């Protein structure tokens, strides 16, 4: 059965390693923070200028001066720090952040990503996404396998204006975990109960399928 958004987040959380600094984008990526595996410690960075984000504040304790990049009220953990936007992107551009998780409208088999602009529609801007994808060594895209029109978002080539080129390493959708290398998608895992055939059918890009594709282990 295809995963829900929390399932995608849970699978991505398995990629976290002890001691990593992680930047989570808006949407599904934000949910990753809820599934940090036992026994490891990670710190969350938000590009508006905070390291060491904690959970949302209790009702009535929100501080308008303390938000994340999604403009949500947050709290901080012990050991947190605040800094300006230039320093924040120094962390990102300088590759001090070990993992970036973000959503996408399209991903191509050479690792291009499009997630900021649909021509003809209102353009809201790229925010920090272009800096994040151009800089991060390790980018995981969290998204649905197809768009609302039922078209694959896992493509030979992106059709929308790009956010970054050749940068995505891994994609986790409600159906599959795929790695991008040598200009192709490699199917690593399938969601519990989802068939390889279904994944192939819903993927437009070139997909390398090994003989055995294990199911994700989400326990």
């Amino acid at each position, binding site marked *: 059965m295809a995963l829900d958004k929390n399932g995608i987040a849970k699978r991505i959380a398995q990629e976290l390693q002890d001691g990593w600094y992680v930047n989570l984008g808006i949407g599904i990526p934000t949910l990753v923070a809820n599934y940090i595996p036992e026994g490891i410690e990670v710190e969350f960075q938000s590009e508006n200028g905070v390291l060491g984000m904690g959970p949302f504040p209790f009702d009535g304790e929100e501080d308008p001066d303390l938000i994340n990049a999604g403009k949500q009220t947050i709290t901080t953990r012990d050991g947190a720090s605040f800094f300006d936007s*230039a320093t924040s992107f120094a962390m990102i551009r300088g590759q001090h952040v070990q993992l970036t998780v973000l959503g996408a409208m399209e991903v191509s088999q050479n690792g291009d990503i499009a997630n900021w602009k649909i021509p003809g529609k209102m353009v809201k801007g790229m925010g920090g996404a272009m800096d994040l994808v151009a800089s991060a060594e390790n980018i995981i895209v969290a998204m649905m396998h197809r768009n609302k029109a039922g078209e694959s978002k896992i493509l030979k080539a992106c059709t929308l204006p790009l956010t970054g080129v050749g940068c995505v390493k891994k994609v986790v959708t409600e159906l599959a975990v795929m790695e991008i290398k040598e200009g192709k998608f490699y199917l690593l895992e399938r969601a519990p109960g989802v068939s390889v055939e279904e994944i192939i059918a819903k993927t437009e890009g070139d997909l390398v399928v090994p003989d055995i594709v294990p199911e994700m282990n989400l326990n």
Partner: protein
Amino acid sequence: MNKVVKNPALALAGITDGMTLMVGGFGLCGIPENSIAQLVQMGVKNLTCISNNAGVDDFGLGLLLQGKQVKKMISSYVGENDEFERQMLSGELEVGLIPQGSLAERCRAGGAGIPAFFTPAGYGTEVAEGKEVRMFNGKPHILESALTADYAIVKAWKGDTEGNLIYKATARNFNPMMAMAGKITIAEVEELVPAGTLDPNQIHTPGIFVQRIFKGEKFEKRIEQRTVRPKN
């Protein structure tokens, strides 16, 4: 070196039609509310505003948009703002979109006398159009130039009479770099104290970057996305 002015009107004196302003803040967090209100009252027009966001319809820079005071917005993320959208789609408002990290670094560069620098952000996208590309460490980078402004308007938590500033939490954001990049920098603060009160070790923006400072009359500090857990 006393830089205190009595009110927003004196602080913003000299801002005229057609000028370029940097305005601090991220979303509605850390924006110079009192100065924006004063800009509305002054009615200056044809402004170019460099600010990470454009506020919401009825708060922040949205107030300047309502009065059609802005000719061009230079930002990384806009929207959350119907009037903005209307003006942009109708062509009344020019919009220049810049990756957020490049925007921050370009402001810092403007303040630091660095006229241009290379960054990987935006390579291969429309942001890179017309810009020089060069390889460093096997990776393509684009050349970005410094940004400066006629006036930078920033908001701090505490400030002293010499213009030294301390920001609070994530209300810091773009304020420090913009303070550096303004030909004239105006700071509005929640708390204004005599020089010598703040610990010199804890100053975020040294007074050299600030020309005028005033205590804001009131701060609404509107929250854009209130997210909470229930108390149990």
